[in-house]
């Protein structure tokens, strides 16, 4: 059964970060993409023993650096100064992406422009003809973890759904996303039908209408 939270509105991005953090397994190795996903770190208690990977070459990344902690030689993939936790390690880019490409990370959480029902991901290029292409590590991340989660608002500024039947934006990866966390609901994709695990401020039926997608409830 889908859990529907109808007594409240959609989640804020901070609340959503907390929801995602609850699904990160103890002791797992996790890469949090640039932007909103970095908020998830604030909701991971130290005793959970989650180790953060940043693809520019580090395991054991700590929180953002403040004041005197700022060190130009220590940044995350978004080029924001961060800190180092005990047990950290540094490695070069080829080793870092080998770690990712080799499937050693448990979870990667990414932002997205669009996710399709089959797990296709579009998060690197708007497809506008005058846009300058820039991919960074997006395509490597998309195929580089046992579970790829997406964190995003479910609807664009113009109200159009970002969870879609098929992506219209250029793809980042094919069938790579397993779960989509949004302000209105949490979805499992890549299976025969999109499964809604939980909703906020909207019921499953209305959600299905707004997305124009057949939605099913989790088993059990």
């Amino acid at each position: 059964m889908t859990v529907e939270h109808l007594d409240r509105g959609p989640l804020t991005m901070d609340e959503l970060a907390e929801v995602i953090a609850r699904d990160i397994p103890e002791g797992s190795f996790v890469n949090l993409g640039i932007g909103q996903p970095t908020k998830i770190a604030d909701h991971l208690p130290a005793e959970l023993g989650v180790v953060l990977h940043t693809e520019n070459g580090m395991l054991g990344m700590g929180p953002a650096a403040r004041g005197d902690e700022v060190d130009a030689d220590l940044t995350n993939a978004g080029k924001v100064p961060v800190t180092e936790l005990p047990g950290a390690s540094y490695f070069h880019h080829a080793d870092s992406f080998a770690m990712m490409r080799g499937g050693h990370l448990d979870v990667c959480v990414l932002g997205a422009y669009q996710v399709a029902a089959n797990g296709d991901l579009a998060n690197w290029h708007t497809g506008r003809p005058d846009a300058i292409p820039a991919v960074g590590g997006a395509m490597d991340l998309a195929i580089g973890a046992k579970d790829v989660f997406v964190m995003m608002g479910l609807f664009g500024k113009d109200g159009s759904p970002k969870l879609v039947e098929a992506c219209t934006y250029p793809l980042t990866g094919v069938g790579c996303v397993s779960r989509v966390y949004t302000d209105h609901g949490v979805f499992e994709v890549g299976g025969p039908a999109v499964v809604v695990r939980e909703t906020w401020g909207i019921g499953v039926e209305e959600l299905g209408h707004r997305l124009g997608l057949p939605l099913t409830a989790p088993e059990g």
Partner: protein
Amino acid sequence: MARTQLMETADEAVAGIEDGSTVLVGGFGLAGMPFDLIDALIRQGAQDLTIVSNNAGNGEVGLAALLKAGRVRKVVCSFPRQADSYVFDELYLSGELELEVVPQGNLAERMRAAGAGIGAFYSPTAVGTPLAEGKESRVIEGREYLLEYPIKGDYALISAHTADRLGNLVYRKTARNFGPVMAAAATTTIAQVSSVVPTGALDPEAVVTPSIYVDRVVAVEARHYTVQGAR
């Protein structure tokens, strides 16, 4: 990979290795050879194993003992024949053991590819030799290469010098050899070490195998083996 487990004994560390597994075994000669884990594997009893290692055992210890106990179906290695590899020699010549000979650098690179998610790669090594037989070849910028596929392990048994409690590893001198490559190439990596230090005691710049590649660690007593005598 979940959090690295610190085990009390080598026997606990090798628990659960299934019959028919592919086991990557570190070491080059004696340096970096995980003797305690191999001995525990013999006691553990798994059979029908494929062993990937540089050599195929010396005298009657380590891999040679595992071979002698009849637990190995196939050996993938670069240099089985040595002055004291008589256990391997007999089993091989009597047809009881399958052998795949892989040039040492391709052996290392094929395991590196497995750990790095590379589907296959073109190597110039062994072109025009008997070891090229059956391999796809391709000319790239005027040079011939052979297509080589990853070697993945179900388990890796390696020996490192020191672990921290998170499972980060450092090695010592040329005993590093295959350890880091095998740790990344196996589903479950089991490391024996001389000591386990508190998290934070290893220099993050000098960690060689990050904890993400290490599943189980066991501290063992240093073995005082004879370097010359065991060659």
